[in-house]
């Protein structure tokens, strides 16, 4: 399948690439945006993080131990939780438990379904497949999950009058928060839907581009891309749904009272 050899990138090539960052740095300096230092720090972090992950993947690929692969996936999920935690200002009660369990069920379930039934490679833990595929699913779900959690909290805050009016009229907490939950779910799904609609026209997806670069037939790369987009959409939907289902309950007491008045 792979007749072409990928051009090797030497360290000297990377130095030339890094010059491109300096162009961005120079422009930022010219306009005095005050972010010059951040550009350098961020680019340095990017380099160090990627080198570290490169060696880690090299190790995991070489050892091919299922436990090590699973540990790697857990660490990835842990980092995504940490990123979500730092992004979201107003966290729902039990934030980490809800986000963690939803991510685990949503992404874990879809990843294994995808790897075992769609791609169907053996052994199931082959890190060459499992890690990048899971990474894409987790990364995308993380964005959907953040949007769902953030939107739910803001909707419940802004719709306080509506929700309390409904409760006064005898609604259950679930009925009263229905509109807020629906709006939050929509907000979580919209980016994925938009990306899906624009794929192939506005942008060539990363995985497909990477496969083509490493010599995969474009038609096969496209098939992989279609399959992974389906998996990502499902994972975003399931993860967000679980977050909203668990999260919306946390804002109410068992006596159908909306918590957090005067906070």
């Amino acid at each position, binding site marked *: 399948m792979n007749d072409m050899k990928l051009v090797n990138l030497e360290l000297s090539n990377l130095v030339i690439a890094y010059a491109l960052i300096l162009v961005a740095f120079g422009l930022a300096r010219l306009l005095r945006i005050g972010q010059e230092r951040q550009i350098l720090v961020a680019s340095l972090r990017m380099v160090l993080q990627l080198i570290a992950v490169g060696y880690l993947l090299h190790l995991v690929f070489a050892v091919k131990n299922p436990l090590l692969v699973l540990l790697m996936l857990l660490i990835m999920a842990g980092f995504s939780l940490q990123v979500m935690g730092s992004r979201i200002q107003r966290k729902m009660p039990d934030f980490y438990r809800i986000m963690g369990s939803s991510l685990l069920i949503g992404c874990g379930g879809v990843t294994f379904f995808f790897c075992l039934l769609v791609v169907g490679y053996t052994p199931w833990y082959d890190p060459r497949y499992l890690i990048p595929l899971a990474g894409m699913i987790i990364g995308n779900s993380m964005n959907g999950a953040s949007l769902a959690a953030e939107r739910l909290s803001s909707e419940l805050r802004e719709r306080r*009058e*509506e929700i*309390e*009016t*409904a*409760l*006064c*009229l*005898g*609604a*259950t907490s679930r*009925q009263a928060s229905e509109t807020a939950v629906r709006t939050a779910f929509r907000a979580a799904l919209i980016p994925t839907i938009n990306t899906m609609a624009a794929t192939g026209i506005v942008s060539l997806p990363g995985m497909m581009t990477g496969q083509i670069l490493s010599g995969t037939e474009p038609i096969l790369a496209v098939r992989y891309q279609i399959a992974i987009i389906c998996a990502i959409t499902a994972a975003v939907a399931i993860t967000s749904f679980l977050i909203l289902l668990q999260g919306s309950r946390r804002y109410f*007491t068992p*006596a*159908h*009272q*909306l918590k957090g*008045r*005067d*906070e």
Partner: protein
Amino acid sequence: MIRAENIVLVRQSVTNGEASILSGISFTARPGQVTAIVGPSGSGKSSLIRLVNRMDDPTSGSIFLHDTPISAIDPLELRRRVAMVLQKTFMFEGSVLANLQRPFVYRQTPPPAADDDHLLTLLDLVHLPGGLLPRDARSLSIGEQQRVNLARALITVPEALLLDEPTSALDRPTADRLGTMLREICQSQQLTVIMVTHDLRLAERSADYLLYLERGRILEEGPVEKLLNNPQTEALQRFLTPDEEASS
């Protein structure tokens, strides 16, 4: 009848720690009477009325509906029996009829149609013409929305009605009409009405019994006329004075 016994409400907040909102509140509100809770802002009036249909729960003390403690009644059932009109009127998207049908939708029981007898009587009671039913509820005037709000609370035939500052968004003549209407409804339906207000004229017009609340305590209570004409405590005298000056 609604009876409160020794209600204490302490609120925990992240920023201010523990704050005492209500302490040692006891009162009785009787059917066919409007009980008004008056007092300066921040005195705990709204916090108190929210306890009666369990929008919140007290830290200690009990509230009874007839002789049953409300904590022993399913909150959804309680809110059907003790209706509440919140301070800010919220109209759901859709027609006036759809708004009046909401409580039935929540309970999953068949809602009344536009020609339902009870619904028409109720519209009459709150002085709303039947022609408004198909109108978009959010396009009504604030006074009309307030009356739809009242009809929506009464449509499931509650035993008691709680009102939190019902006239805060209304002009004087509309507020006066609402006061008279409340009194009529309370007497004709033998409703137990508890109303929170800072509007003394409304209290005078519609209430039978008055509770004066300040800093979370009832400082004075009694029949409206007696309290307004002959306040015993300095606090109530002070509260009544600026309003008298403004109206004279």
